């Protein structure tokens, strides 16, 4: 077979090879994104995602969406502009959550015996679906950044409330009021995580009474818009093809 001849001999064979190529690429993309996104999220979101007693209404709501919109934006840029595939955000978050769950179950529970109800990851899939659908319907990076980034930030807290809400039930413990999440953090000893490094309920946002989460979510959403732009361009650059002339 010469270089000018086709590697396949029929249309049916071409379709089969193409599909096989699809599965290979999808498989590789899933695991590569899982690995990269997971490391990135653990380094930047870290404790806010690890522990229920870090999932507060101020800093977790602000930090987690901002650091999490990165890879979805980049993967979207690649899959949409080169293939018109609108599942970049969802595939990235599916990868991240699989990695997080494997980590939480095998490491946090399997090795160190922290109960899973204390170390579950944050929920990002509703935000990811919104991001993908907005990109698909508008076909515009700017619109996706503004509307999608906003939706990404705003949906985060309500998406997670079904799981963290029950842990915010108050309890009186030896004369002090704590949430069940606080009590988990106190009971399940973390030798390397003293209470003072827990960054919750800090800041100067005190003029909204108890309704802090929506304000934090709006701030997070605004910053998510900016981060979306930035990482979208990373994705575009990363998936671009350059041909150079042979010397």
């Amino acid at each position, binding site marked *: 077979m010469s270089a000018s001849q086709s590697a396949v001999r029929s249309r049916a064979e071409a379709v089969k090879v193409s599909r096989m*190529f699809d599965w290979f*690429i999808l498989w590789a993309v899933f695991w590569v994104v899982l690995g990269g996104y997971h490391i990135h999220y653990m380094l930047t979101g870290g404790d806010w995602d690890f522990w229920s007693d870090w999932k507060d209404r101020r800093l977790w709501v602000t930090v987690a969406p901002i650091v999490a919109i990165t890879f979805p934006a980049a993967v979207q840029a690649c899959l949409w502009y080169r*293939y018109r595939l*609108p599942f970049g955000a969802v595939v990235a978050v599916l990868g991240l959550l699989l990695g997080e769950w494997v980590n939480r179950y095998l490491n946090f529970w399997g090795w160190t*015996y922290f109960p899973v109800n204390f170390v579950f990851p944050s*929920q990002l899939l509703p935000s990811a679906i919104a991001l993908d659908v907005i990109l*698909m319907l508008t076909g515009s990076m700017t619109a996706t950044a503004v509307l999608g980034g906003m939706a990404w930030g705003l*949906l985060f807290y309500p998406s997670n409330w079904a*799981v963290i809400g029950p842990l915010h039930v108050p309890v009186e413990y030896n004369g002090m009021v704590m949430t069940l999440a606080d009590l988990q953090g106190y009971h399940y000893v973390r030798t390397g995580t003293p209470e003072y490094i827990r960054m919750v309920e*800090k800041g100067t946002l005190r003029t909204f009474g108890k309704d802090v989460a929506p304000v934090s979510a709006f701030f997070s959403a605004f910053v998510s818009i900016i981060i979306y732009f930035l990482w979208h361009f990373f994705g575009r650059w990363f998936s671009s093809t350059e041909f150079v002339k042979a010397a």
Partner: protein
Amino acid sequence: MKILKDKVVKLSFVALLITITAAMFYTPTASAHGEKSQAAFMRMRTIHWFDLNWSKEMVPVNDTMTISGKFFVFSGWPETVDKPEVSFLNIGIPGPVFIRAGSWVGGQLVPRSISLELGETYDFKVLLKARRPGDWHVHTMLNVQGGGPIIGPGKWVTITGSMSDFVNNITTLTGETINLETYNLENTYFWHGLWYAIGLSWMFYWIRRPLFIPRSIAVEAGKADTLITATDKKVAMGFLAGSLVLVLVSYSMTEEQYPVTVPLQAGLLRGIKSLDLPAPTVSVKVEDATYRVPGRAMQMTLTVTNNGDSAIRLGEFQTAGVRFMDSNVAVDDTGYPDDLLAEDGLTVSDNSPLAPGQSRTINVTASDAAWEVYRLADLIYDPDSRFAGLLFFWDESGNRQMTTIDAPLIPTFI
């Protein structure tokens, strides 16, 4: 010759493989907490733990034990470590093998960070409930913001039974009694599982048709718009609307089921009550102090003045949790960890009772392998070669009083 060389190479390779494989099978449990690696000056000049008591050495799952005692926040706190203005009474155990059912400093529950004063002594208690069977090294521990963990003495405690029997029942302020070990677990799995399934179905909608090569060709050919059909848009809108509705429903259901929730609690507890100890009637001046490296012994020349009304004798020198005792004066009956106790490790040149109003210069030697084992000898490599510790004197009635010493330490190598 070449055959011989090849054989040597092959056998060496096999030997290397066997060595690596054998090494893999040697996986001892890492049970300690690096207490010996912590800089010696930090252990000697920050928190002095004393009168420690581990209430049990064997605890069944679900049973409790306490660690209690006192700690002195050293007045000569090193400048290289931030002062304990924000601290946390922790416990040094390998993960949640116990749960911390309670911890108190000065009688105050301390689930939060606390502010401590230099030169003060505090009593503390930690209540632990056994959770995971095994032999565990249980340390006292104080975390200091800007200073790191300051680990105290540790003792081996055995937990017996089965972890599957462990329960952690809590009654909430809404009147519900729950087992915190498993509470909310099914709910967590349900919502994460459901959203994962929805995410997968969105993926499945797209990956059931050809993906990369034909779509790339179409995009390159300027036919990208043909790749998204009207049906695709309807399905996408359905996914978006469905997701929004589901978020709203899940939020409302949670609000309905848990109408009373409060934010996470955090803050710094100030005004922790220290122990009101009587002022010592003994004064001690360190004339000089040397550490003899080959002999693993510290020698001090002390001038002791008895300002009290009863004769006294020096019975114990304690530093970094290691207790050097003169058994003629005092004997430990608390079951203190053997490796940290030198029952006859304190030698005093003249330890006859020092009468009230008298002053005497004595040579004190604190010698034990613990200097080396606990790497306290590494003090000579610290940037601020000073040592510190507690001296305990006993009077004729058996009353004990404590003084502190803090002085430069000169190493001798011959």
